[in-house]
């Protein structure tokens, strides 16, 4: 059995089978979040694409690569979005080095 099967993406809604109320609330919230607001649907899709990479979700990467294309984004914009995710992910790792330094400073002569 594959852990990640692209066809499983279409079954996302099945998550409501044993908890329909929670799932309905989640999907209603999800729809509201991605509707055009202060940000356009295109901008939100680019953010989602970046986050999808940061959380290493292949389903989300598949879904939001296609959504970005359908919302009119191009490969330059999408690649820059992924770099933003990489910069924040890398920065988050590095900034924890401050904790390491704090401990090093305390424990070492």
């Amino acid at each position, binding site marked *: 059995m594959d852990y990640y099967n692209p066809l499983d993406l279409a079954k996302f809604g099945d998550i409501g089978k044993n908890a329909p109320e929670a799932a309905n609330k989640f999907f209603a919230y999800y729809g509201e979040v991605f509707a055009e607001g202060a940000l356009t649907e295109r901008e939100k899709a680019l953010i989602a694409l970046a986050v999808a990479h940061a959380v290493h979700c292949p389903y989300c990467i598949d879904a939001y690569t296609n959504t970005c294309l*359908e919302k009119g984004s191009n490969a330059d914009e999408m690649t820059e979005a992924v770099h933003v995710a990489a910069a924040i992910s890398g920065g988050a790792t590095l900034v924890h080095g401050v904790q390491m330094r704090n401990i090093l400073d305390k424990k070492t002569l």
Partner: protein
Amino acid sequence: MSEATFAETLAAHGLALLKAKADCLQVNVGSLCNLSCGHCHLEARPGRTEVMDRATMDEVLALARRAPFASVDVTGGAPELNPDIAHLLLGLGPCAPRRIFRTNLLALEGRDDLLGLLADGGWGIGASLPAVNAAQVEGVRGAGVFQRSLEMLRVLNARGYGQGPGQGGRLELHLVSNPGGAFLPPAQGPATRAFRQALGRQGIAFDSLFVFANVPLGRFRSWLERSGNLEAYLGLLRQRFNPEVVCGLMCRSICSVGWDGRVYDCDFNQAAGLPCLTAEGETLHVRDGHGPEQGAAILVGEHCFACTAGSGFT
């Protein structure tokens, strides 16, 4: 279980695709083109020999004079490459209040004679421009095409196209965009804003943008097959079937004449080889002297899902 056909899908929604009054005469003057675009449903390219001759043009003109249309729409291939294009444009000019000439922009380069004829005759321009990003445009149309397209748009602007009402009336400049691959286009509103912003930075103005899904026929279908995208793309088109757009589909109101004078319900049926039929089931030729009959059934195929996906092809 096999997927529902387009006809079955219509029937499941209680819909039928019947001809309304054909108020637009679309003339495809041939599949000869200076480009070989990846999304072309007609497989137009340099070297194609299917080109409308003057005798067929005269039959088109006879039809246009006999059965007045609200609009005429000249397309190809690259219609600029038809040696008798001026004859057709001059004849069609007085036949309809609205006139649109389709161009890929590059075929207009160096054609001041034709540009003058179009502007003097009040012909609007429908210019295809897949995107406002060089890589996307050139992925579809070939290297070096983007900047040359922008340059021709500037030439059209300088001629008064896309600049609002001016001396001698308004010269319309409409852009037509198709996605650069196996995905659906953005909604027209946001896409128009993006085009206006990007082209505005280049000093280019236009009247409106039309975004259309790529139709799985011809060269685009071959690419879908080669790239392993066909099944998923057809699935996407089916999934986005929108019954609300059916009554406004352009095939209901177009008389589409092919390069050899055969009449179709739309340019896509022309590519698919599905002729326009009379109520008695007979095929129609432009020399028959009348357009499609109101109420006649329109032949449909799998490709029709491209026109009913999302906001549709109206």
